């Protein structure tokens, strides 16, 4: 699935986007964040406190219990500060 990172999530991981295939037992947004936290130091720093983050699947914000699918675009970011 396509993963996008914004703001300090992007800075800590060092990537704006990538494609990853999580193991089959990772079926929800929450599980995906926990799995990503194990993928390296930058990821651990980005996902240290998932409660700080919002997640969008295919550009719609969703709660952590939401299931994920291989063809999804999943984005991780802190709350918006535009305007």
């Amino acid at each position, binding site marked *: 699935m396509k993963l*996008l990172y*914004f*703001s*300090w999530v992007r800075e800590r991981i060092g990537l704006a986007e990538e494609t990853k295939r999580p193991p089959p037992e990772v079926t929800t947004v929450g599980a995906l964040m926990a799995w990503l936290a194990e993928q390296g130091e930058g990821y651990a720093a980005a996902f240290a406190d998932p409660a700080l983050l919002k997640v*969008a699947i295919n*550009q719609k914000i969703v709660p952590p219990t939401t299931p994920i699918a291989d063809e999804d675009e999943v*984005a991780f*970011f*802190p*709350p*918006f*500060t*535009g*305007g």
Partner: protein
Amino acid sequence: MIRIQQETFDPGAEIKALTQDRTEIGAVVSFTGLVRGASSGGDDASHPTITAMTLEHYPGMTEAALADIEAEAHARWPLTGSVIIHRVGRLLPGEPIVLVVTASAHRRAAFEAAEFLMDWLKTKAPFWKREETEAGARWVEATEADEAATARWAQSSAG
């Protein structure tokens, strides 16, 4: 009308373009947000001077979010037109960041819709601000005040 762009804009020109030759418009309200020269540090004592602000956004989601926000304003108020322009990229103090213009037959709708659009823009559009100061750079944090401002527009569910 919605635009997301790096280039600066001229609020006067946008208002003129919206209202020219439109005799049904009796009221035009506009808001322009600018980059300040001091950090948004709230009430604390140190306000390091902002030297630049960078706006990051989520291409694709940004356009969709602004379209939804615009549609919501037009559904709630009798607007004859509106403009939302939001810049992205690296901006300097004094530069404009965002423009909201609303037009209606009468002033109440224009005033309320403009305030609504800004409150929603602050919390529902995927932009992130990074401030550079002499003390270093930091990501601006979302505030409870902005969330509260958005919440006050919540409507009770219709029957």
